[in-house]
């Protein structure tokens, strides 16, 4: 009886599955077709198409903007390594227990509060135009480095919060168990808490990095001709917005694989956590 019931349920389940696949396909096709129709039939579509999606412009600027995009890639690759390291230090400092470390905790809290609150573009301008004006002899005046430094400072604040959430999510019993085995506080953090914490926060970390990659375009306000500024120049010289679309294409091109990777990691994580709980 149980077996008959089970196979019945399975068959009903697979039928439902098939029909829901069809509904999903149909509704997707209808919605996308309707959206396309609405846009293409809009009275101003030919003008918008010419101004934003001109194939000739796209081809003309693909190479130059792609070349300029290399600068964005360099900036975020270097920035990401620095951010991962500095944010970890900051998060650990903020998690230091005991009254002795209060000033350090306060400094760490002040840092995250301040730099998460400041608009990124302001800090980029402040670093890029402010620091060279100080005329310090051993500090670079290169706007690329200064702009990247501003991004590192801001994103370190964000990422340290992500790390801290990870550290807080590790159950206190883990620490207690580790300490009872005779590990020092430092050893516990290093070998027990952090490995678990970091694994849990990989998806939100990737999320922040996608934000960082787009924000490399903010450095354009300091003058370096990266992808966005190259698009800006192209757009201004031809009175056509297609170069911006080319720049967007490159940003999306590197973002999408990371977004899918994040999704996959989240799904894997959930599967793992649910592993014992399935009935």
């Amino acid at each position, binding site marked *: 009886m149980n077996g008959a019931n089970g196979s019945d349920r399975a068959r009903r389940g697979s039928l439902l599955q098939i029909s829901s696949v069809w509904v999903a396909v149909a509704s997707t096709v209808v919605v996308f077709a309707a959206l396309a129709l609405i846009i293409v039939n809009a009275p101003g579509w030919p003008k918008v198409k010419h101004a934003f999606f001109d194939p000739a412009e796209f081809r003309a600027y693909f190479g130059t903007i792609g070349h300029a995009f290399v600068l964005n890639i360099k900036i975020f690759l270097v920035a990401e390594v620095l951010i991962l390291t500095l944010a970890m230090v900051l998060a650990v400092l903020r998690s230091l227990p005991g009254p002795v470390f209060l000033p350090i905790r306060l400094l760490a809290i002040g840092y995250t509060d301040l730099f998460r609150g400041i608009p990124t573009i302001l800090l980029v301008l402040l670093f890029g135009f402010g620091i060279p004006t100080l005329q310090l002899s051993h500090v670079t005046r290169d706007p690329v480095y200064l702009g990247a430094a501003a991004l590192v400072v801001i994103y370190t604040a964000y990422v340290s919060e992500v790390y801290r959430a990870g550290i807080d999510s590790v159950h206190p019993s883990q620490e207690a168990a580790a300490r009872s085995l005779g590990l020092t506080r430092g050893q516990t953090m290093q070998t027990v808490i952090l490995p678990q914490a970091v694994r849990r926060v990989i998806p939100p970390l990737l999320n922040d990095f996608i934000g960082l990659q787009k924000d490399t375009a903010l450095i354009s306000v300091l003058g370096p001709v990266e992808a966005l500024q190259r698009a800006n120049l192209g757009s*201004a010289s031809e009175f056509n917005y297609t170069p911006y679309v080319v720049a967007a294409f490159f940003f999306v091109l590197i973002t999408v694989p990371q977004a899918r990777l994040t999704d996959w990691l989240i799904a894997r994580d959930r599967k793992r956590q649910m592993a014992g709980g399935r009935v």
Partner: protein
Amino acid sequence: MINKLLAVAFVALALAASGCGSSSSSSSSTPPASSGGAADCSPASLHTLTSGKLTIGTDNPAYSPYYTGGPGHDWSGKYNNDPYTGKGFEAAVAYAVAEKMGFTKDQVTWAVTHFDQSFAPGPKNFDFYLAQVSIRPKRAENVDFSLPYYRANQAVVALKGTPITSATTLADLKQYKLGTQVGTTSYDFITGTIQPSQQPSAFNTTNDAIHALQAGQIDGIVVDLPTAFYMTAVQIPKSTVVGQFPTSPGGDQWGLVMTKDSPLKACVDKAVSALTADGTLAKLQKTWLSDKVSTPVLQ
């Protein structure tokens, strides 16, 4: 079941929405693009943004020597200038064109239009726009240009005593870090003609370029010659015009920007050519733009 209902709802919504799209396309009435109105240029019969008024767009900030009335209205802050004063070369040209078209000073309204907005497709917030915009064939595919009202050469500004000031040829400039403003034709000129060994910088505003020059991040700014004179005289202490570039083939001519297929073009052109013919434009240049011709030409 819920899924199916949702699907049906989507279809209904989509149909309704597409119905809206097509109905608005048939009801939207565009003024005839023919230049048949050329004969009749009286303010009352012109298809201006606000009937009986002329709306002129310009950038904000509006810089000298093209606008020199000092801050006012929406144009506030250091180095910014209120176009309503009619002071400065382009403010004066705008009012002269308006007057030739039959509008009084009170009938002219100024609109803040960012450079990027000036060529955006779709409705514009101005009847014509002027902010040192060079006429280019590629640009003319997306907007209408009036006949030119000025012809400008590009020049290099640098701080006095820096190595770049000893440059006498285009080749001498190659080794320096140059900067320019986005939205000008200067960047193409730098990369195409000077071909410097260092990547030139492009700034969003002139103020940013000035800042970078003073902070030593760039060696020279490439701008049009009248702006170069203004920079050296007012904006950047201890700076000098290194030289001007020979007039590019076809010339860097500035025109008033209008929406593509503007019904006003014929009348605006008529006014501009009348102002050229009667010497008004030449007179305004003399009044507002420095006429120093001694600037060396960098070949």
